[in-house]
């Protein structure tokens, strides 16, 4: 590409319209104002949002996000601005921009630590609580499968896969639990695929 063409293409690129994108501050500030968050909210962020007990997984419903209309741009009074920036500094992860409630702000870091590769479509569709439960269910399923394999190996009765169907099958409770977890994960993933 000669110099003239290069200049032309650069100019064409710079003139091209780009879609307007709301900044992270606009979104976080909107949540601060909508939910009237106070400085005390920061202390809530100190404790990881680990309030979901594993026993609840089977009862968990697929929780959808509460729709919220973020403003195109946002100005805040000093107190609100300081709080919004403090939240952004404290919960510094790429999932924060998809949070649509204070609860999701709090969960976002835990979710990101658990699975940093969630796609935007997943993050936009489901409440972070559901996604967090889904990730935990996957992890638990892996652990349970591993646990079952280990116990079979200890018994020395062939491969784990073979033993599952015979007299060395998994205990009912364990099997039931794996089924529950599997069904929950499938529900989340099926609805994402739709």
């Amino acid at each position: 590409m000669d110099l003239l063409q290069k200049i032309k293409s650069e100019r064409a690129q710079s003139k091209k319209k780009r879609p307007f994108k709301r900044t992270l501050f606009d979104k976080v500030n909107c949540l601060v104002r909508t939910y009237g968050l106070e400085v005390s909210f920061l202390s809530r962020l100190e404790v990881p949002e680990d309030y979901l007990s594993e026993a609840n997984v089977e009862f968990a419903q697929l929780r959808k996000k509460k729709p919220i209309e973020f403003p195109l741009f946002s100005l805040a009074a000093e107190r609100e601005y300081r709080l919004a920036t403090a939240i952004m500094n404290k919960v510094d992860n790429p999932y924060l921009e998809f949070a649509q409630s204070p609860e999701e702000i709090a969960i976002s870091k835990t979710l990101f630590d658990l699975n940093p590769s969630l796609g935007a479509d997943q993050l936009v569709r489901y409440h972070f609580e559901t996604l967090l439960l889904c990730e935990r269910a996957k992890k638990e399923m892996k652990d349970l499968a591993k646990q079952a394999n280990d116990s079979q190996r200890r018994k020395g009765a062939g491969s784990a896969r073979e033993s599952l169907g015979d007299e060395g099958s998994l205990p009912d409770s364990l099997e039931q639990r794996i089924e529950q977890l599997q069904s929950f994960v499938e529900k989340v993933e099926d609805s994402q695929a739709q």
Partner: protein
Amino acid sequence: MRRLIESGIDFLVESGFLYLPLLYDPDIEREIQSIPDPTESQERTGSVILNKGQHFVKSLSLHSLVANYERIGKDSYDQVRSAVLRQVAGSIDRGETSLSWKLITIIFQIMPYFIKKNRGLERGKFNKEDILKLIAEKVDLPPREYERTNTVFDLKPLQEALKVLERLDSTFKPPTDGIISSSELRHWLQKALKAQVVEKERTRLRNEVRRREQLIATVDEDMDILLYVAQKGSLEINGFGFTRIGASDDYLIYKRTGEYRLKDYYGRSYLFPDCRVAVPTFSPFKPVVMEKYKHPFLYAHDSGQEICLHGFYPPQQFSAENAIHLLEEGINALLYGYDARRRNGYHSLDRTREYVRTVEFDDYRISPGEQTSLR
């Protein structure tokens, strides 16, 4: 503006300007941080002031706010104005019950438009003296002295109101520099608006007195004619007239249409009798017919009906220009507005089968023989 004043936030006043607490976003914060030496004392940085650790941004000139409040906060301004006027109303209200500015406007501005000179080569509008002469010719004026109190020639009520206004304080100082709460600002604004209203009213009344003095000097000897007309409340000259409504200072100004003819779809003529098209001097300013009358542009066969005018927006206030325009619109609609092809209006002159007829015009129809004789 009202939302700002009732917001409950604290403002800053500096050199006659109102400063609002600065609103932030990351760009603004970067900009603020780039300002050199942001000391805790009031640091002047163009439009942003740092006061006790809080940034304020320059917004409105308080003087300009007061000067333009009539436009930006009309309701509040009107409240203040009516409160001031209540104080002087006692003096003003006593005047102008019979010979008012409305009547003066009708006689000297509207009447000359409709009564044109038409004597040989002498054409044109009447001036004030001509009008008074014409009235004197047409009206049998009984020889007596007329009372001038309660008329536009009685300047005493206005002068008394002016005196009351002179006593009211019309000065206001901008609030002292520093933090001001929204309630303090509201209080100050009320005072400033009151002072402004007092000043404006003074000017208005002074001009009014001067205008009336000029009128008195102009009509001088013929003043009795005006006073007689005012007492009578009605007058008609050459098809133009007015009549007072009850004991109020409002009038119906009218112009006679004379007889006129309209044609229907089949070319048949209809002779419409004379009627008075009138406009009131009060809202709604719409042309009406005074007599019991029927016409395609009138909904029923009744008196006092509004004339149907397509795409017409009535004016908001009484003035000579508006009254003239309204009268012309009304008369033109009756005489030239009906389109026989389109049969526009509420009714059509000829019978149609499309809707139930409520008003018929068969009695106005003239036979071909009569038509030729009328020509």
